[in-house]
């Protein structure tokens, strides 16, 4: 955790990174939990005919990794004051390793703002997000 009651958060501070391997099984388990069985995610034959050329992970699955990173960094404060504005810019595919990174960009009025990103193993950006939390 980067912050507890005794820590000082500073602009430019990096959050601990988090990496997760995406598999079709991962995607299928998320489909079960979320009820989102969009064939783009769970039907390889259908997905192969669409613009991504194959199945892709739910954006909300990758966003969950981002939220986990913020839970790890800010603890309960993330659960009770967290805000996210995210754009899905690319798709994670089975076999990808997704890495979440973040950096503090603003500390003002008790609110901490972080620029967050999810990238695949090629460095391609999958998600960009602005996160805010009361710290």
């Amino acid at each position, binding site marked *: 955790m980067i912050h507890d009651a005794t820590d000082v958060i500073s602009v430019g501070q990096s959050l601990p990174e988090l990496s*997760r391997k995406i598999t079709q099984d*991962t995607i299928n*388990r*998320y489909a*079960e*939990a*979320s*009820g*989102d069985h*969009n*064939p*783009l995610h769970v039907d390889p034959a*259908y997905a192969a005919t*669409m613009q991504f050329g194959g199945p892709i992970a*739910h*954006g*909300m*699955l990758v*966003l*969950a*990794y981002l*939220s*986990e*990173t913020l*839970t*790890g960094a800010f*603890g*309960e404060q*993330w*659960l*009770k*004051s*967290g*805000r*996210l*504005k*995210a*754009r*899905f810019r690319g798709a994670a595919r089975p076999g990808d390793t997704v890495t979440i990174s973040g950096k503090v960009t603003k500390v003002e009025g008790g609110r901490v703002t972080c620029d967050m990103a999810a990238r695949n193993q090629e460095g391609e950006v999958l998600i960009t997000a602005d996160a805010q939390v009361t710290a």
Partner: protein
Amino acid sequence: MPLSLAALAKGDRLEPVGIDLTDEWVRGYINAVEDQAIVGMGACAPPMSLAALAIRALLAQSPLPAGSIHVAQELSFLRPVAIGERLYTHAEILSRGDRQAWVMMGVRLCVRDSAGDLVMDGRATITFPLDPERGD
């Protein structure tokens, strides 16, 4: 038969859905996303699980058209939610724009507790292929 999201218009609201945040479902969610950070948070559900619950309730009432793509997501988490709580999900179509072969739609998804207080609020932006037979 549930009405596809493609058939909905700006201002449409779906019926609120009451859901018990069961230990079984939360464990399944945590297993799916491999969340390790929530382990130290007591008997609380990962905040993104609330969004997943809201999406689950939405899709049960109004399925996504095939080929839908999630473009953007805004979320606010207002308090930790304990496993075992009774929650109510709400969905409303905030915006809809039809452009050539695609629809861009904004959907508000929020979750309230049994006292009616917000525990999660959010806006999803999705796009899907325009179906000339939408509403069928």
